[in-house]
């Protein structure tokens, strides 16, 4: 039991949030300091979690089936790393970006609350506890979407909140079903009990409800319609967090846990995931191609890219899971970078409409090349990180004999490239847009965040170097590939 540090991953950002609300109302600088320090601390903790062996922590000293068990296994530590890495860089970016908004302490409070919620979702081993943290993160994200309090922000926040609440209700109902059937909330215990009791109509119903709820949070077609409204409306750093990590920790991660570790992946279930993933990929990318609002375009790509991860999981083989998880990691990096870039462009030019931009590569060289590297990464151009994960997913499709899905992944990848070339074409190439003669490159904190993320996009393929892979990715793959967890083995961690 070396898991004493696990609760800190939730407690630290929560404490930071309330300290911001308490002490940093008057001083934006203090709020920034607290926010940055807290996120840096969380990042350090997650790196520690990655390098240290898996462990658990029983909250309040109550043993597992009774109390809440926090579980830090390979998957959780990978997700934590993703979340806190992106959060840290986004936080540095926002130091300068959020100057345009009033109420810095509110931003930091909500940001840290969301971070605490996401971390909680990832580390908890208890289904209801997961629901609570999921709601904390969701509520904070609703509020962050409405942060600008403009017309569109409010509209998007309302729709997002209504649909998000509906999703949460489905989840709660599903949890109630499962609790009623198995009499436990601990996920590992639940998996054990489900194995003993066998499949019943109620377990299928619960699965459908839970899957729908998580799919809504992950914005999988047809549950995706809130995302293209909500993600563009938030301030850029928040969009980066929402698209970069929130939909993954709340949606994709939870689906993976549910399908592999609680229910155990049956062929029917995996087929369902494959179809869901493929549909999301296609519909998301086709819609993205038509967009002229840069952030909306990026948002639709999130729908499409989440499809890749689900497709990878749906293959069910170790290679497919590896591809899905690796794509999850990469997508967090490049999608948050793309949103940060859109924020930089918006701040410099005052518009998000691609038609009004143009020729900015000379004016904003850093933004230009970070955008290019992120765009190439998401489009799977070698040697950027996205290429590797797509390669693995395609290889996994081929390995399973799922030719159609492999070809589909390739087609979607080409369309992704098309829409990102549209972005770079209209924003950076060509003649300088009207009124942009005095456009300057954004200040250094924003550039710092973008450049680090861009470097991660470029060297992302190194995650596959055996030493790194063994440490970060393989344990996570093992957790999912291992199938249903049993309480015994979780407690023994």
């Amino acid at each position, binding site marked *: 039991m070396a898991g*004493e540090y*696990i*609760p800190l991953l939730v*407690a630290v950002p*929560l*404490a930071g949030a*309330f*300290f911001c*609300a*308490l002490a940093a109302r008057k001083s934006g600088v203090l709020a920034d300091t607290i926010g940055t320090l807290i996120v840096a601390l969380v990042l350090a903790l997650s790196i520690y979690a990655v390098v240290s062996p898996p462990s658990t*922590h*029983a*909250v*309040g*000293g109550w043993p597992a089936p009774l109390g809440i068990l*926090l579980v830090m296994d390979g998957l959780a530590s990978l997700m934590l790393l993703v979340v806190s890495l992106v959060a840290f860089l986004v936080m540095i970016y926002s130091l300068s970006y959020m100057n345009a908004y009033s109420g810095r302490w509110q931003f930091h409070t909500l940001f840290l609350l969301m971070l605490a919620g996401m971390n909680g979702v990832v580390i908890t081993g208890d289904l209801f506890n997961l629901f609570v943290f999921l709601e904390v993160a969701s509520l904070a994200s609703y509020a962050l979407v409405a942060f600008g309090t403009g017309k569109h922000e409010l509209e998007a926040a309302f729709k997002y909140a209504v649909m998000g609440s509906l999703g949460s209700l489905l989840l709660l109902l599903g949890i109630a079903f499962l609790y009623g059937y198995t009499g436990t909330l601990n996920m590992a215990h639940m998996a054990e009990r489900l194995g003993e009791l066998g499949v019943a109509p109620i377990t299928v119903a619960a699965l459908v409800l839970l899957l729908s709820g998580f799919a809504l949070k992950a914005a999988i077609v047809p549950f995706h319609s809130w995302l293209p409204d909500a993600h563009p409306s938030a301030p850029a750093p928040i969009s980066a967090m929402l698209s970069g990590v929130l939909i993954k920790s709340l949606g994709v991660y939870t689906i993976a846990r549910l399908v592999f570790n609680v229910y155990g992946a049956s062929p029917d279930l995996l087929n369902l995931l494959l179809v869901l993933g493929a549909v999301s990929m296609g519909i998301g990318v086709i819609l993205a191609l038509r967009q002229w609002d840069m952030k909306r375009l990026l948002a639709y790509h999130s729908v499409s890219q989440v499809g890749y991860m689900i497709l990878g999981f749906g293959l069910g083989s170790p290679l497919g899971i590896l591809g899905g998880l690796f794509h999850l990691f990469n997508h967090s990096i490049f999608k948050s970078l793309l949103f940060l870039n859109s924020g930089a462009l918006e701040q410099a030019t005052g518009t998000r409409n691609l038609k009004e931009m143009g020729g900015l590569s000379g004016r904003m060289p850093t933004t230009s090349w970070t955008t290019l590297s992120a765009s190439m990464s998401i489009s799977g151009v070698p040697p950027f990180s996205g290429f590797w994960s797509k390669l693995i997913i395609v290889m996994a499709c081929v390995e399973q004999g799922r030719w159609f899905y492999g070809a589909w992944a390739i087609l979607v990848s080409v369309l992704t490239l098309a829409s990102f070339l549209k972005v770079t074409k209209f924003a950076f190439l060509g003649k300088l847009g009207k009124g942009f003669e005095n456009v300057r490159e954004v200040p250094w904190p924003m550039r710092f965040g973008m450049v680090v993320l861009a470097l991660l996009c470029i060297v992302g393929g190194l995650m596959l170097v055996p030493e790194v892979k063994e440490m970060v990715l393989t344990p996570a793959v093992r957790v999912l590939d291992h199938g249903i967890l049993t309480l015994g083995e979780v407690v023994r961690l």
Partner: protein
Amino acid sequence: MARNDGEAGMTLVVKTVTRLTVGLIFLYGIYIVLNGHLSPGGGFAGGVIIALSFINLFLAFGAKKTFEIIRKDAVTALESVGAVLFLGIALLGFIDGGFFSNFLPQGELFSLVSGGAIPLSNIAICIKVGAGIFGMFLALVAFRGSEREGK
């Protein structure tokens, strides 16, 4: 609704009844909180009741009078204080084993001083919830006010 025209608040009847009951409601809230570990109730329920007493005050006497008793800033600050206290109690659990561990002696069953750190948590929750709900009420009401003034 609260207007700054001297005759703030509702009619005399309401004011008088409120004056008589508001203290009782407040006290009842505190009772619920302190007995939270023994009987139904606890921090959340008690906090709501305490918040209701302030809401009563606000509705009957208007904003000015209420803010003489408790400032608006204090409400939002108290909310965070409650949260920090609660988190602090949870973290103090590390003294004895881990997060949320009950680090205080348990005391005698069914007496007021029992349950270790649970009553303390209840108090923290009460502060958080009471301030939170009252703050929420203020936020909604104040927004309506500003909207009308805007027009």
